[in-house]
Structures are given as structure tokens and as C-alpha cells.
């Protein structure tokens, strides 16, 4: 039994008067694909934000690879190897697509105060950035300005940026949201290739994707973990069916 890569213990987060994370405890193993599902407002993104560092819990402890990261600033978590994408893709809009993963590389290496050497001429930088774009399948758009790309391509650019940070843990917030049919298929295929490269915590509403890809599924409702386990167990859990998947048998 190896130690989990990420442990969340008793995490609580209050936003205003609302308890958005209520005593959450989760383990994520190395290389595991861990899906977090639940109805809107269940606190899925809030949980992801606490792992990524965009929010700090009011109580509880988060450890990553043995390090307590509960209150660590976002950029330090990134350098420890926690990468993420956001529900609405966040990109460097004025940059060419290729320069987005380049920022991921600079951030990972902590090489951000160079005043002289042109970024694209840094050793391996352009090759690595191109490789990141190739990994998500948009090499052909490397030199396009990012804010002119479609929603789906922006999401791919953001994933490439996160991958360029060589994360050991990748947080994906609804990677399938807002994608067309073809794009969804491509994204599923991409997620399959990412599986095993890094541990992944993925918030997702697309149940086909969740149940075909995830090793573990955690169900949140009203900020609480109501179930966590293997996909087939979750699918058959009566409690999950009533609270989320819908009471009808034909789900």
C-alpha cells in the first residue's frame, strides 16, 4: 500500500453564510483518475479551488506528496506539480497559442526574470511548447493568436499550458463543458491519453465520460461527500441515484 499523492482531511470552507465544503476527506493515488460529480452548487469547483490554492480552507488539512499545502500560495503549489484548468478556459489571450505552454514551462522552471534571452530561443522551450500543443492535438494552430481561437481550442490550449508545467496532479474543471459533439469525442480521447500520465481530479457533468474514464468517483451534495468509490458501485448506489443521477430507473 503506497501513500496517497493527495490527501484531504476534514476540509471545511465557508463562503458567506454557506458551508460550501463540509468536512470533506478524500485520497487521490498517484496516476489515479478521480472524478468529482454532484448537482450544481454542490461545491465541486470550491473543492478544486482549495486543492489548487485559489481558495484556502477554513478548517482541515490538505497534503500533497507528504507536504502540507493547506495554505500554500497558488504559484508554489504549481511548482510542486499541481496543474489545473478552469471551468471557463483561462488563457493568455494576447499571446500566440504556442506561447501559452511556454509560460507553463517558464513557471515550472522558475525562469521568469530573464531580461535578455528571447523566450522562444531558450533551450528546449519552443520544442517543449510545441510538444505540449501536439499532445492536445492543435499543433496546426501554434502561431494563431489565442483569443481568436474557438472555445474548444482555447480549452485545449489551456490543457497544454497546464501540461507544460509537468504536473503530477492535474485538476480539470469540467473539461467537456461547452464543447460540440466532435470536440467532446476528441476531449474524451485526450483525457484517456492523459490518464496515467498524472493523477487527475476532474469535476465533470458528462456521465459517459466520468463512468468510462474514472478509477474513482466521489459524489458531492451540499458540500458533503455522500459517496466515494469505484464507478460501478457509485452507479448502483441508491443514495447517489436519488440525490443526483435522478430517481428514475432509466438513467
Amino acid at each position: 500500500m503506497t501513500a496517497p499523492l493527495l490527501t484531504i482531511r476534514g476540509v471545511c470552507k465557508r463562503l458567506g453564510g454557506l458551508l460550501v465544503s463540509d468536512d470533506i476527506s478524500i485520497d487521490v493515488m498517484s496516476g489515479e483518475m478521480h472524478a468529482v460529480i454532484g448537482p450544481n452548487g454542490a461545491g465541486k469547483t470550491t473543492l478544486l479551488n482549495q486543492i489548487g490554492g485559489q481558495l484556502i480552507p477554513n478548517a482541515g488539512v490538505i497534503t500533497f506528496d507528504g507536504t502540507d499545502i493547506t495554505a500554500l500560495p497558488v504559484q508554489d503549489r504549481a511548482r510542486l506539480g499541481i496543474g489545473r484548468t478552469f471551468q471557463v478556459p483561462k488563457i493568455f489571450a494576447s499571446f500566440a497559442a504556442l506561447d501559452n505552454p511556454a509560460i507553463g514551462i517558464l513557471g515550472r522552471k522558475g525562469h521568469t526574470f530573464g531580461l535578455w534571452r528571447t523566450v522562444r530561443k531558450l533551450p528546449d522551450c519552443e520544442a517543449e511548447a510545441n510538444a505540449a500543443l501536439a499532445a492536445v492535438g492543435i499543433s496546426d494552430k501554434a502561431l494563431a493568436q489565442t483569443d481568436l481561437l474557438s472555445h474548444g481550442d482555447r480549452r485545449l490550449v489551456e490543457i497544454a499550458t497546464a501540461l507544460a508545467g509537468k504536473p503530477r496532479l492535474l485538476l480539470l474543471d469540467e473539461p467537456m463543458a461547452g464543447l460540440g459533439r466532435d470536440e467532446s469525442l476528441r476531449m474524451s480521447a485526450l483525457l484517456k491519453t492523459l490518464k496515467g500520465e498524472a493523477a487527475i481530479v476532474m469535476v465533470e457533468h458528462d456521465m459517459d465520460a466520468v463512468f468510462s474514464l474514472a478509477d474513482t468517483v466521489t459524489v458531492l451534495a451540499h458540500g458533503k461527500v455522500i459517496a466515494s468509490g469505484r464507478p460501478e458501485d457509485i452507479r448502483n448506489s441508491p443514495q447517489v441515484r436519488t440525490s443526483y443521477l435522478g430517481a428514475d430507473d432509466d438513467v
Partner: protein
Amino acid sequence: MSPSFLPLRIVIVCCVALAIAALAAFGDQTVLRFASRVAIMGLAAVAVDVVLGYAGLVSLGHAAFFGLGAYVTGALALLGYHEGLVVWPVAIGTATLAALIIGALALRTTGVYFIMITLAFAQMFYYGANAVPGLGGADGFRLPARSTLAGFSLDNPRTFFLLCAFVLIAVLLFARRASFASFGYSLQAARDDAVRSAASGIRNYWLRLAAFTISGAIAGLAGVLSANLTLYIAPSSVLSWHLSAELLVMVILGMAGTLYGAIVGAAIFLALVEIISHYTDFWAMYVGIAVIARVLLLRDGLLVTLRKLVTP
């Protein structure tokens, strides 16, 4: 840069070199004085563009750094220190230190709060300079003489103009270079999306602080040159918030985020003021109209629009 721009680039470099040479060779005292002023304000506008265009922050406090550069130069001149190799680093160092301290505090905020805090700090220096005994208060004071540089006199307006032009071009080239290096890239990433850049391991605060401090140093250098050009310093001319605002107008007039645009903007702004103020006291109104026209009609900025017209 695509190959089709290359000839245009060479043309521009040649034109600039020719213009500087022609000014130095044929310009009379008035022309040289005006050209020096354009170079100095262009330098200060470049400093503002580092913060505005690359860090994405509106500073209304750059007069503080410009003014500190000028005041320290002037105060040391009053004490009998004229050697630029000693006086200028002290003056620039003071402005840099002020930028570091003000930036460290102001950068904890963004948006309107950042504007207000930078303005508030600059106003402290403005009123401070009014109150310091021996520096003429609100009336300001005259410098006894221009600095020397390694013993060489800068009294010849031709020499002084060439120095200003050289300093401006050196700073511009350095800043352009840095904008394509990892510092410039990371800074612009933080400007485009600070949440995303942090999630990629970028230390936004320190990058912005470094940019703000470098910007303060450049503004301080401009202040040093300004004091040597005018040989007269008053709070209203080098520390007033109007100066901060005018620098912003210059950058926007030329095109923020390009650095050279700031210089073009400074030249247009000063030329407009120079010409229009011959005819009317209400020159500011016409400059205002020019800014509105630039923002509405030339959204890509003057230079990019020209480039589009020139290159098919």
C-alpha cells in the same frame, strides 16, 4: 517579425538615424531644446508604458519618480556636486528606491485602488517638495550649472541632445529586448490572466514589483535629464500629478504595450502643445480631441495603422 516587415524596419531605423543627425547638425538652440524635451518625455513615457502596457496597471504616480530624479540632481547641484557619474546614479537610485517602496505597497491592490495609492504617494512628494527648506518651496529653484559627464561639459545643446537621444534609444532597445525575454513574457501573462499565470507557477507580485521598480528607475533617469535641460525645478513642473496624467496620455496617444509607441506619443503630444498654444490658450481641449480621435479612429495605434497602409 515576418520578412515583409524587414525593409520597413530598416527604413525606420535609417529615418530615425537621419533625423537625429540632421537635428544635431542643423538644429538651432530652440529646435535642439524641443528635440531634447521630446527625447526626455519619451523616456518617461516609455517608463509609464512598462507599467501600463506590459504589467497592465495604471499608475498616476510616475511624477514622483521623475521629480525625485530631478530634485536630487538639483539639490546636489546646489551643494556643489555636478559630476554626472556621481550625481546621476544617486538621483536614479533614489527614484528606484521610492518606486520599490511605493510599488511594494501599491501592488497589493489593483485597478482603481492602485491608481489612487500611486497618486496619493506622488502627492506626498509634491507637498513634501513644497515644504523642504532651501529648495525654493512652491517657486522652485534654479540649478547653478548643468552636470558634467566624466568631466565633459554638456553645456552645448547639440551634445546634450545627442546624449538624450542616445539614452532614449539605449533604454528603448533594452526594454524591447526584455519584453521578449522570460521577464516580459511572464509579466504579460500576469496581465492577460493573473489567475492563470499563478496556476502556472508565475509569481505575479514579484514580477510586477520588478517592473514597477525598473519603470521608476527609467522615470528617474528622465527626471535627471529634465533637470539638466531646463536648469529649473519646481514642484508644479516635475512633481505635479498633471505630469503623471500627461505621460499616460502620451502612451495612449502612441499605443500602449509597444514601448516605441510611447515615444511617438510623446512627440505628437509635445508638438501639438507647442503648435496649438501659439494660437490659443485652450490647447488642452485640442489635445483632448486628438486623444479621442486616436482611440476611436486608430484603434490599432498610429504605427500599426501606418504599417498596414504601407505594407499591402
